[in-house]
C-alpha cells in the first residue's frame, strides 16, 4: 500500500481535492440550515413536531437511492455532483436539526430572561446568549456530521462524481486491493483531520469551556 501511495501521489491529490469539496459544501449547508431551524424548533412545539419525524424519515433513505431520486425532483442531470451535495446536506440536516433542537432547548430559561431584563433584543440575545450556550452541543453534532459525510461522499463514485471513492471502483475493477486500502486509509485520515480541526476551532471559539476544567494548583 505504501508502494501505491508513492506511485499515485498526483492522482490521489486530485481525488482528495474533489472529496474535500464534496464534503465541505454539504457541511456548510447543514450548519447554515440546521442552526436557525433548531433554534426555532426549540421554541416552537409545532415546528418540532414536524421537523423531528421528518428528519427521522429522511435519515432512513439509503444514500444511493437518494442520489438517484433527487434528479427527478430537482431537475438536475442524473450524474450531476449537485445531487450528491444536496443528498448529503439532507442527511446532515436530518442529524443536525435534532441536535440543534436539543442544544437550544437546554439553554437555561433564566439566562435568556436575564438577557431580556437587561435590555437585549432578540437578535443580540440569540447571538450572545443562546448561541454560545448551545455551542458545545452544536460542535459535537457538527463533528458527527463531518465524519459521516466524509465517508458517505465515497458512495458517489458509483454515480461517477469523483472523490476518493473512485479508488474503490477502479481498485475493484483492476483487482488491486492496495488501491482500495489506500482509499480507505485516506478517507479515515481525512475524517480524523476534519474532526481534529473542528475540535481545535471549538477550543478557539469557546475558551470558556477550558475554564470549567479542574484548576491546577500552582503551589
Amino acid at each position, binding site marked *: 500500500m505504501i508502494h501505491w501511495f508513492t506511485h499515485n501521489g498526483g492522482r490521489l491529490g486530485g481525488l482528495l481535492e474533489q472529496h474535500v469539496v464534496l464534503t465541505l459544501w454539504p457541511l456548510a449547508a447543514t450548519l447554515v440550515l440546521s442552526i436557525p431551524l433548531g433554534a426555532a424548533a426549540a421554541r416552537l412545539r409545532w415546528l418540532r413536531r414536524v421537523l423531528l419525524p421528518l428528519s*427521522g*424519515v429522511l*435519515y*432512513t*433513505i*439509503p*444514500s*444511493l*437511492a*437518494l442520489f*438517484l*431520486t433527487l*434528479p*427527478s*425532483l430537482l431537475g438536475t442531470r*442524473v450524474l450531476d455532483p449537485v445531487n450528491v451535495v444536496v443528498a448529503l446536506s439532507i*442527511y446532515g440536516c436530518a*442529524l443536525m436539526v435534532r*441536535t440543534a433542537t*436539543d442544544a437550544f*432547548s437546554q439553554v437555561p430559561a433564566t439566562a435568556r430572561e436575564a438577557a431580556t431584563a437587561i435590555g437585549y433584543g432578540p437578535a443580540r440575545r440569540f447571538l450572545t446568549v443562546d448561541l454560545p450556550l448551545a455551542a458545545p452541543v452544536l460542535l459535537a453534532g457538527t463533528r*458527527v456530521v463531518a*465524519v*459521516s459525510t*466524509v*465517508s*458517505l461522499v*465515497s*458512495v458517489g*463514485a*458509483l*454515480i461517477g462524481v469523483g472523490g*476518493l*471513492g473512485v*479508488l*474503490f*471502483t477502479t*481498485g*475493484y475493477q483492476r*483487482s*488491486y*486491493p492496495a488501491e*482500495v*486500502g489506500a*482509499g*480507505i486509509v485516506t*478517507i*479515515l485520515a481525512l*475524517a*480524523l483531520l476534519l474532526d481534529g480541526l473542528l475540535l481545535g476551532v471549538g477550543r478557539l471559539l469557546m475558551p470558556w469551556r477550558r475554564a470549567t476544567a479542574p484548576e491546577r494548583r500552582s503551589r
Partner: protein
Amino acid sequence: MNLLHEAFSWLTTADAWGGSDGLGRAVVDHLSIVAVTFLVSAAVGVPAGVLIGHTGRGRVVGVVLANAARALPTLGLVTLFALGLGIGIVAPVVALTVLAVPPLLAGVYSGIENVDREAVQAARAVGFTQRQVITQVELPLALPVILGGARSAVLQIVATATVAAYVWPHGLGAPILSGLALSDYPRVLGASVVVIVLAVVLDVLLAGLQRLLTPRAMRPARARGRQRARDHAPVADLAPDRVG
C-alpha cells in the same frame, strides 16, 4: 417530473417485477441478505455488548468501534472484502456485519448501563445468580435501548446492501446499477423508490416493535411532558450512524 412519471409507469408493469432479474426477486434477495447479516451481527454484537454492559469493562472499545464505524467508507469495505474473499455472498455479509455490529453493540451496552442500579442490587439481594441478573433484570429493562440499536443496525444494512450490489449483483442495488450502466433511468429511479419504501417500512415496523416491547412503566408518557421524556432518552451512544 417526466422521469418520475416514467419510473412509476415502469413500476406498474409485470415485466418490472417478474423474472430472475425482476424487482420481486430483488426485494426477496435484499431482505434475505439483511436478515442473514442481522443474525450474524447479533450473534457477535449482543454477547459482546452484554459483557461490556454487565462488567463495565471494555467500554472504551465500544466507543472507539462506534466512532471508527462512522468514518469507515462502506463502498471501500465492500470492495476490499470482495477482493479478499472472492465473488459470492460471503464478502458482502462480512462487510455489512462490520458496519452493523457497532450500533448493535452500543445499544446493548448502553442499554444495560442505563438500567437502574437499584433494580440490579435488589435482584442480587434476593439471591439472583449473575446469569439471572442478566437475563431477568438487565436485558428486559435494557430492551427498548437494545431495539433502538438494532433499528439503526438494520437501516445501516439495508442501505449498505444497496451499495454492495456493486460486487454482489443481487438485491435492489442490482437494478439500480444495471440501469445506470444502460442509461435506463426509469429503471434506476423505480428501483430507488422501491428501496426507499422498503427502508422506511422496515423502520416503521421496528419502531412499532420497539414501542410494543417497552414495558408500560418505561414508556415516555405524554402526560409527563416531552421535555422530561427527552431528558431520559439515552442519547450519547445511540446517535444513529449513517455510513451507507
